[in-house]
């Protein structure tokens, strides 16, 4: 028994080793000889989030399409396994050990990054935060954070909610997982406006882990515990908003009339739902900022100063017509 066990372990190891070998083979040029100047490819380690939803897919695809060999880069894409921070820290550490030229980081969780970032700093590898921020926000540990501004986007949603509210209305928030910087920022933006408008009454908030499935289950129960007396839902991403739509329909109510659902992200599926009148408001959180990132990477390597926070501009869609007009050009 032991022998067979060992044999299989050895086999598995061999397979994984060859897999690694292939990986390095295709990413030619990313060998110890760093430097960045001349005709050499610049190696970029991308500690990414991986499968999470359409927004993330668009963002990470855009990064991979921008940092191409033709543009002079060798991008090493390392998505997290099941949104696990541990796997991200491992990938980050191995990029530092490998000695890549730049690291791009989209953290699945905001806290717990200081030690890793300090290691990168010792190795003189500039780190650029993509979308997700870190906590505590120590700007001395990274070059810059490039992201659409969550606080501003969430404020926009809250202002729309105020305009729909009338004299008094109840709202519920579907949040992402606790502790993620995006969640905190989207709450901050919303709360800033909501606290100044007492007619917006908070019924509660629950996490649905960015997932359609969980959001449906959460919101069907929330509707019952409040006897359907909820007029506005603030879903912090599109997937959860689409789950809330299904819960509302199943409760025999009409989304868009009885319960108005606002989401952030602006993926194609959400815009379709808005065009069909199921969602009521979609705030875009622009994922396509590969060009900006590329620009920043060049500047950072050249030693130029970069602002510590670069805001990517975003738009909002407040009517089915606006959504229908934007749909044909939607890339994600």
């Amino acid at each position, binding site marked *: 028994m032991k022998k*067979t066990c060992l044999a299989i372990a050895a086999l598995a190891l061999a397979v994984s080793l060859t897999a690694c070998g292939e990986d390095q083979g295709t990413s030619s040029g990313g060998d110890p000889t760093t430097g960045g100047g001349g005709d050499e490819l610049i190696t970029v380690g991308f500690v990414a989030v*991986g499968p999470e*939803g359409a927004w993330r897919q668009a963002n990470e695809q855009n990064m991979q399409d921008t940092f191409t060999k033709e543009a002079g880069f060798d991008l090493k894409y390392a998505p997290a396994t099941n949104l696990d921070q541990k796997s991200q820290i491992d990938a980050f550490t191995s990029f530092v050990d490998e000695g890549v030229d730049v690291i791009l980081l989209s953290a699945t969780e905001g806290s717990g990054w200081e030690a890793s970032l300090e290691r990168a700093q010792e190795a003189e590898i500039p780190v650029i935060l993509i979308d997700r921020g870190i906590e505590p926000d120590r700007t001395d540990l990274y070059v810059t954070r490039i992201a659409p501004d969550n606080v501003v986007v969430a404020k926009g949603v809250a202002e729309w909610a105020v305009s729909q509210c009338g004299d008094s209305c109840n709202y519920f928030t579907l949040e992402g997982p606790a502790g993620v910087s995006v969640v905190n920022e989207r709450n901050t933006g919303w709360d800033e406006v909501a606290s100044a408008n007492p007619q917006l009454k908070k019924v509660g908030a629950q*996490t649905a882990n960015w*997932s359609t499935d969980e959001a449906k289950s959460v919101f069907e*129960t929330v509707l*019952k*515990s409040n006897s359907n007396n909820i007029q506005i839902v603030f879903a912090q991403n599109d*997937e959860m908003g*689409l789950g809330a739509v299904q819960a509302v329909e199943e409760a025999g109510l009409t989304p868009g009339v009885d319960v108005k659902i606002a989401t952030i992200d602006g993926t194609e599926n959400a815009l379709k739902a808005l065009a069909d009148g199921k969602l009521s408001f979609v705030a875009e959180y622009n994922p396509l900022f590969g060009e900006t990132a590329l620009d920043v990477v060049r500047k950072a390597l050249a030693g130029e100063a970069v602002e510590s926070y670069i805001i990517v501009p975003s738009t909002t869609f407040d009517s089915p017509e606006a959504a229908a007009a934007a749909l044909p050009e939607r890339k994600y």
Partner: protein
Amino acid sequence: MKSSASPPDHPGSTSGPGTTPTKPGAVTGWLKRLFRLPWAGAIAAIIVLLAIDLMADSSYLAVSYNSSTGHLVGNLIDIMRAAAPVLMIATGMTLVIATAGIDLSVGSVMAAAGAVSMEFLSNNQNAASASAALSALALALALGTVLGLANGLLVTAVGLQPFISTLVMMLAARGLAKVITGGQNARATSEPFRFIANGYVLGLPVVFLIALVIAASVALVCRRTALGMMIEAVGLNPRAARLAGLRSRGLILTTYVVSGLLAAIAGVFATASVMVVDVSNTGYLMEMDAILAVVIGGTSLAGGKFSLGGAAAGALLIATLDKTVLFLGVPASATPAFKAAVIIALCLLQSQRARSWLASIKASRRSRADQTEAVAA
């Protein structure tokens, strides 16, 4: 268990009033037998949770009829629907655990099965037809069976530890789900497929009825034939079972295949509910729910005796607990702690030591009372 039955037999204490309490004795005996059921704790916990919900809202248990949709509506109905996937994987898990094994891959198999059905439907021109939905269902079930078979072969033919082989499958199946959908969350539209998780028959959610029928038929096959006893024999002592003429390997292999198949059904339930497969979230950590349901239901992780009814009670408890947390509006950050507290309380209630400790307190109190009575007489 034995200790709780012994106190009335104490010599001397029964001498006087021994003849009179036959009738109340029958009732208490019945109650005692109920209390001694392995899953009495789960039922008690469900009742306590529902009572808490009732205190929060006196109409919690109300089930009303929605005339526009023709379904029954209510929190109990929601609990039934939420329990369906857990019931499926807990049933499979019970059989595997009874052979002294474990199946950690059920959550990932759910994702893989969901992924293959969603991907098939999203690429199908007539996805709205019943035949497409049936093919998607068949594909999902076939994949689950194959993955279960792989688990079973690793355990029986190769002789790997069940923990390791299913751990490998847990990673592999989720990886497979990502490969199938190209790393994305795949979505599709198909009314017949959606019906599996959202439809109603006679006002009741179809998903719960399907789950109930499947769980009941598994229980029937196990208990009405010798299969259940054979599985128990293998779990208690595989060598002795083999010497007694049982094909242990075949039996163990079967339990893993059944577990994979049931996990695939759970995966179809989970994805059909919203018609999206979320490759990193669908079925994530569901193996924990399944193991919990099995343990709460009174099946020992050491193998041997198992209780499918207990697993069903455990599945219902987990669904009730999830829904209660939402209904009470427990803050998201406190949810895991709340759940853990309930489950620890339940395990304490079921632990042999805690029970006999409670029984000994009761017994000593009773004997003291008897003594004082005797003194007074």
